[in-house]
């Protein structure tokens, strides 16, 4: 149920973000979503794409430092309180979140939340127990097309 996320190291300089994006575009890799974490000197771009292995090879060839990590994506109602409900379940189970971001992925009235947990397997169990739809890769990629 886990989804592969690519992290790319970027120096905080003009043009640094476009280089990996151009490389992916040339290779025909579509970016489903991305989030950026940055400091004054450097940043980490986190990407979700349909073909993570291919994207990793393309980026590595382009000279990027890339790391693949597993994240958990869940489906939520696109309404006020949608995120808060999920966070309540996670907090109650005492699971920490390293970071998260959200995006919409083609299903009407639904959004996807992406979580980086320290213990993803436990998080998946807890969320599924509470009836939350943890989205697998195929489901996410197919609906995004």
């Amino acid at each position: 149920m886990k989804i592969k996320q690519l992290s790319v190291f970027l120096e905080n300089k003009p043009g640094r973000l476009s280089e990996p994006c151009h490389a992916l575009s040339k290779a025909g890799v579509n970016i489903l979503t991305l989030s950026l974490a940055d400091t004054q000197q450097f940043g980490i771009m986190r990407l979700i794409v349909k073909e993570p292995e291919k994207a990793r090879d393309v980026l590595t060839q382009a000279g990027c430092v890339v790391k693949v990590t597993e994240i958990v994506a869940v489906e939520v109602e696109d309404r006020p309180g949608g995120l808060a409900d999920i966070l309540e379940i996670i907090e109650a189970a005492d699971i920490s979140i390293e970071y998260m971001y959200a995006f919409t992925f083609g299903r009407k009235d639904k959004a996807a939340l992406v979580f980086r947990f320290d213990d993803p397997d436990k998080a998946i169990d807890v969320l599924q127990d509470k009836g939350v739809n943890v989205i697998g890769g195929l489901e996410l990629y197919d609906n995004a097309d």
Partner: protein
Amino acid sequence: MSEFVTENRIWDSAETMPHDELRALQLERLTQTLARVAEVPFYKEAFAKAKVGPDNIKTLDDLRRLPFTTKADLRDHYPLGFLAVGRDRVARFHGSSGTTGKPTFVAYTKEDLSTWADLCARFLVSGGLRPEHTVHIAFGYGLFTGGFGLHYGVERVGAAVVPASAGNTQRQIMLLKDLAADVLVCTPSYALTIAEAVGAMGIDPKELSLKFAHFGAEPWTEDMRAQIEADMGLLAFNNYGLSEVIGPGVSGECAARNGMHIQEDHFIVECVDPETLEPVQPGNQGELVFTSLTKQAMPIIRYRTRDIAQLDPAPCPCGRTGIRMNRVVGRTDDMLIIRGVNVFPSQIEEALLRVEGTAPHYLIEIGRPGTLDEVKVHVEVRSKDLSDKMSHMQALRDRIGQEIHSITGIHADVHLVEPQTLERFVGKAKRVLDHRTET
């Protein structure tokens, strides 16, 4: 045997000459050398000015009455003012790498070339070379003494040479693999480049047959040795030399790897305070000064190397009697003065290697935006260091800063940069960008 990393083999019995014999031989050869340089205009003038001559040198201690020779003296007498023989006796010329200006030339007679090959053979054999080996030499072949010096040393031992010369790392790796070299000769920084490229090409270093490596021509650290040995699966030995004195072969490590034995039957070494020029207390760091004892074409008296190291007169388990010098920690002219603190680039390198997971590709940038010096250290990030968590990346950066501070005492602003963005070096690395000296 446990004190040796490999078999302790000695090439020349002169390496184990008893001390009293060695001192007597040095004095005899010093006297001969002074006679040889008597007609060299620079020495004629310098000795006259210092009111000393060959007649005043009765003991080895009298050497200290002779004037020093500096790099500037060699430049002032460019190109061949120091030649002590007729051009008809010169068999080869070499030159310094010219990293700090015009090259300076050195000359060798046929006899000098033979002596030099023997001196290289000594440290090659003490560091594992055997006649059945194949040696890959990735030093530049040219005016630089590294390539040809080691080449003839290897031939003297009777081993095979792959004269790969410098450059084109992928081709070097192909040669290393296909010709199954047992021994690698290059600069330590180039060995790191090779190790990195081997990894990038998806080659298991075990596919290479390398067992030994001999590194020289630039300062390096114990941590760098550990990394190269782990990455490449070989034993690395340190050797030292400089063209003005003869080239590689002035000193080299034995199988005990606890300092480099200076070939004292061919050179007299002194260790002096670079400011006062007085001898340092035994065991202290200072500038190494060499006097050649057997050079014919271009003997040199009390040459100030600008290399900072220390001497260790303690006996060595290998049986060699030549005094040992430790690693060169830096050059007096590489030394950076940052907010009044003396810092050598090699210390920054040591700090980087201590922090697990940082590549030793770095650039030190020094500026003085206001009234105080500010130091930036750019360090390349490797795939295995990358984390998707910002906190980990910031911790990595902070650890590097802390190590630099604990080794040098200065605070550096550490910048993590993308891989392969800092310049790669085939020969001697240039790791410092000092904006304070720009006009």
